[in-house]
């Protein structure tokens, strides 16, 4: 193990390198570009025995990953923002084809208007595509999570998206423990043989049309239709709850480092209000909670590491007996609510003793999220919770309200 001062993007590249990825296909986009630039330099220098395929678009990047993963290679890519939006068609394909691709998303806002800075609207926009989505709190977790992601993906034949905040983590350097290749090899064996082997001597049709009715497969066996495949996909994602948690436990046993499995928690004991978020905001919120605890206000933090599948039971258990959960979303389902807030409200609906769930939107397009603004939001949630308020409109944190014309 060596400690290096690494940006989040470099940490992601190290995770891919230690996982011994075999095919990397990517197209550059801010703030992700340094991930694949770093990998490309390693490949060129002969330090990483992988095939680096420069493509003409993100749609092609994911297409190459689909082809390579189908052929049995361990594949990797990274993107952000409109790049992710452009590859959306293939994101759905990778999931439906049950390919264990790992992709880093350096989270960035979506256009229009153009903005290169951080929020989480990009990965949230594909949360329903059938990928596992994991969020990282700091650069160490990016490296650790990329390695874990391959174990999860290859065990379940599901793709995994490793999300981390653009600039806040992607471009911020901090000390990262880089494990030895031997330590990672002991944790992550080579990829098992793919479900369908591409072999010219035994030609098969992979990715055929599947209509609503049952159909016979290449071996002549009667199989379900499209809906049965989708149901199996859903069940695989639900089973990922256990696999994600187990994998994090095994990583902790093997490296001594805890990344959190499904959720991470900070000072939840006797908390009146719990602050909920995903990504680097979780790190910032622990500072806010500590400050409020020093003032005698019982506030805790619950970080969502695994956003898909959504860890319903873990959240219900951690939030039992709490007055209010205040969810900070760096995304918004326009016309409704922040995605994490809406999901949490649904998860807690009808549960005895469940907290009120308040939603707050912050940090869109890189708007600075200050500890002071988060503290004010927590205190106003506490006041509402004590007054028995159950329903609240979406609150905006850090939105300019005076002297601004649209």
């Amino acid at each position, binding site marked *: 193990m060596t*400690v290096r*001062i690494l940006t989040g993007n470099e940490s992601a590249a190290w995770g891919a390198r230690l996982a011994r990825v075999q095919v990397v296909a990517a197209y550059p986009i*801010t703030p992700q570009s340094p991930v694949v630039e770093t990998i490309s330099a390693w490949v060129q220098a002969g330090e990483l025995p992988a095939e680096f395929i420069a493509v003409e678009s993100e749609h092609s990047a994911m297409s190459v990953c689909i082809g390579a993963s189908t052929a049995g290679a361990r594949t990797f890519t990274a993107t952000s923002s409109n790049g992710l939006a452009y590859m959306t068609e293939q994101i759905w394909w990778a999931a439906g084809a049950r390919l264990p691709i790992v992709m880093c998303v350096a989270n960035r806002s979506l256009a229009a208007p153009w903005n*290169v*800075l*951080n929020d989480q609207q990009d990965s949230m926009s594909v949360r329903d595509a059938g990928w596992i989505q994991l969020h990282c709190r700091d650069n160490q977790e990016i490296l650790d999570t990329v390695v874990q992601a391959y174990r999860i993906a290859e065990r379940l034949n599901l793709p995994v998206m490793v999300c981390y905040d653009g*600039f*806040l*983590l992607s*471009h*911020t*350097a*901090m*000390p990262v423990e880089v494990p030895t290749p031997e330590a990672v090899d002991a944790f992550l064996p080579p990829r098992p043989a793919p479900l369908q082997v591409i072999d010219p001597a035994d030609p098969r049709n992979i990715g055929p049309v599947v209509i609503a009715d049952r159909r016979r497969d290449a071996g002549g066996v009667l199989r379900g239709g499209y809906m049965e495949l989708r149901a199996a996909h859903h069940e695989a994602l639900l089973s990922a709850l256990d696999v994600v948690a187990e994998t994090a436990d095994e990583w902790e046993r093997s490296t001594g480092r805890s990344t959190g499995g499904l959720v991470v928690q900070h000072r939840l004991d006797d908390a009146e209000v719990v602050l909920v978020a995903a990504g*680097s905001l979780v*790190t*910032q919120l*622990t*500072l806010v909670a500590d400050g409020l605890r020093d003032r005698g206000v019982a506030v805790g933090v619950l970080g969502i590491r695994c956003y898909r599948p959504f860890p319903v039971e873990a959240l219900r258990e951690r939030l039992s007996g709490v007055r209010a959960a205040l969810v900070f979303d760096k995304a918004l389902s326009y016309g409704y609510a922040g995605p994490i807030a809406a999901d949490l409200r649904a998860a807690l609906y009808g549960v005895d003793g469940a907290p009120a769930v308040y939603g707050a939107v912050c940090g869109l397009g*890189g708007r*600075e*999220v*200050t*500890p002071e603004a988060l503290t004010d939001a927590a205190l106003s949630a506490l006041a509402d919770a004590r007054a028995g308020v159950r329903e609240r409109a979406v609150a905006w944190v850090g939105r300019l309200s005076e002297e601004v014309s649209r």
Partner: protein
Amino acid sequence: MSGAMVEVRWHGRGGQGAVTAAKILAQAAYLSGWESVTAAPSFGAERRGAPVTASTRMAHEKIRVLSQVTAPDVVVVLDDSLLSAVDVAAGLKQGGVVILNTVEPTLALKVPEGARVVRADVTGAAQAAGVVVGGQPIVNTAILGAFAAATGLVMLPAVEQAIAATFSESAAARNVEAARLAYECVQE
């Protein structure tokens, strides 16, 4: 320096290497015994020649702040032509330090009471050590020597080690020499 965490803000022009310097300083700080360090550019798009900023933080406990530095303990200015364009001392803490690359001993700079201004001919140090690219002296590594001398927050050997880890062998030797020369030439 006051408080548990030291915050450094870098001012340079796009292309001068402020972001690289911020990262090498973080490495040097780590090697000097600061267990937690961060380095970051100002977030967003940057243009060559335009004023840019970067930041380094160092602490003994895990740094949990990711926002930009607005109240620095130390300000480092790579290019004194910035003084007419940018309020480099904005938010400088009482007792803070501004490290200024200049040959102009009378250059005026307004700082809060109790703050120091440390001057060094870092361009001269870079030139003397042969850290010159396309005819232009590159000051971002040399000024790390001035930083060590002016603040005592990082040790010169740690600066040298961090520089050596960043560059290939011959470039590393020149950059280390530049930092040593700048370490010697700081003036209050």
